[in-house]
């Protein structure tokens, strides 16, 4: 499974949607994921990729990790995974 497929699977599960309903330009808000759902998604991504995502729910826009849409999340993960390697 590619990073993209894994992330979409995690987000789809959180949003209670089919993976086919999640596109690269979907925002979490579009998908109906609230702040608690976001924190849970980030946790699931950290577990899946064995990375630590710098994210503070008090200032989501100031975190180094861009969550503006699914594509941004995937590229953020790719960056963290490559930094780890």
């Amino acid at each position, binding site marked *: 499974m590619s990073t993209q497929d894994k992330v979409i699977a995690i987000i789809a599960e959180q949003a209670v949607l089919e993976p086919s309903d999640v596109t690269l330009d979907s925002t979490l808000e579009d998908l109906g994921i609230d*702040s608690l759902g976001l*924190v849970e998604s980030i946790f699931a991504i950290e577990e899946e990729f064995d990375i630590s995502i710098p994210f*503070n*729910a*008090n200032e989501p826009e*100031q975190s180094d990790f861009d969550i503006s849409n699914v594509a941004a999340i995937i590229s953020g993960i790719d960056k963290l995974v490559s930094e780890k390697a």
Partner: protein
Amino acid sequence: MKRVVITGAGTINALGHSVPATLEAMREGRCGIGELDFRDVDRLAIRIGGQVRGFEAEGRFNRQQMSLYDRFTQFTLTAAKEAIEQSGLEFHGELSAKAGVVLGNSGGGMQTLDENYRSVYEDGKNRVHPFVVPKLMNNAAAGHVSMQFNLKGPSFTVSTACASSNHAMSQAFQMVRSGMSPVMITGGSESMLCFGGVKAWEGLRVMSKDACRPFSANRNGMVQGEGAGIFVFEEYEHAKARGAEILCEVIGFAMSSDAADIVMPSKQGAARAISGALQDARIDASEVGYINAHGTGTAANDKTECAAVADVFGPQADKLMISSTKSMHGHLIGGTGAVELLACIMALRDGVIAPTIGYEEADPECALDVVPNEARAAKVNVVLSNAFAFGGLNAVLALRKI
């Protein structure tokens, strides 16, 4: 209905090991938050907290007591001693039979849990100390206070996360006001600053890595604290008859539930608790001079709380002062309302309003007089103390100068 007054106060927290030391720190706007110091702290992303320093159980408690007292119980007994000594009360006969202790607490003996889980899971031991259960149970502190001071009336522990102490004190207030008991010991305590305790909070991603800055536009989360605040709630005539020094009067309370979300606060729920306390105390909004805010320093709480205050007080909201002392002692979770009640007593008795320290940038969503960074001299006659917990469970107390 009986009138209820406070005739004793005790505390231990990151700002001081007594009420005078704590109030002095609040007047000076001192910060008790610093680098956490305990085992495995290097495995945490959040490494700051309002830890109680220089408190050694050895010497204070004997060996048998130490084997039974988790740190939250140690804090509770230390604060209870100060409060009850100040009140001058001794409990025997009928007073002993009726007086009890209602305390707030959220995590119970978390230090004991942490140590013993480590021992059985990490170290692979198959035997634990025989007193693990009586040491970690949430009502251990209330039980030990009842034993130490001979309180034989109603005693129990209230657990509503961050509102535990306010719910407990509301309960004690009702018991004295209704005539059920002439004296109740009340307040709360918490000691979650251990690896497991902080790690759990870290998971929620609402903690700040650098400071607690309530109401400031650049706030970035809460900071945990630890300690206890204990008070003697006494029926007014009982206190007057024995010539006791009265610190202030407790005049009302209200509790409400958001019935909405397990962690996100609700403006309506908070507003109902605040306006309910005004109604219960039979006071007009214009009489309130100061509110000790819940003010956690999270994005969500502070703007919701300010909106609730603005809703209840209308134009009066601009005339009152509201500060969060969590900026100094951290968030004591189940013990927080108790330690914060000290700032209310200081406002009423000494005419000093404790500041919100760490305040750096105005936030249009928190556009109230938050007493930024420096304590202020002001005469106030009525104050409120807010607590809004996870679970959407709220409790607000009203107090008056006497």
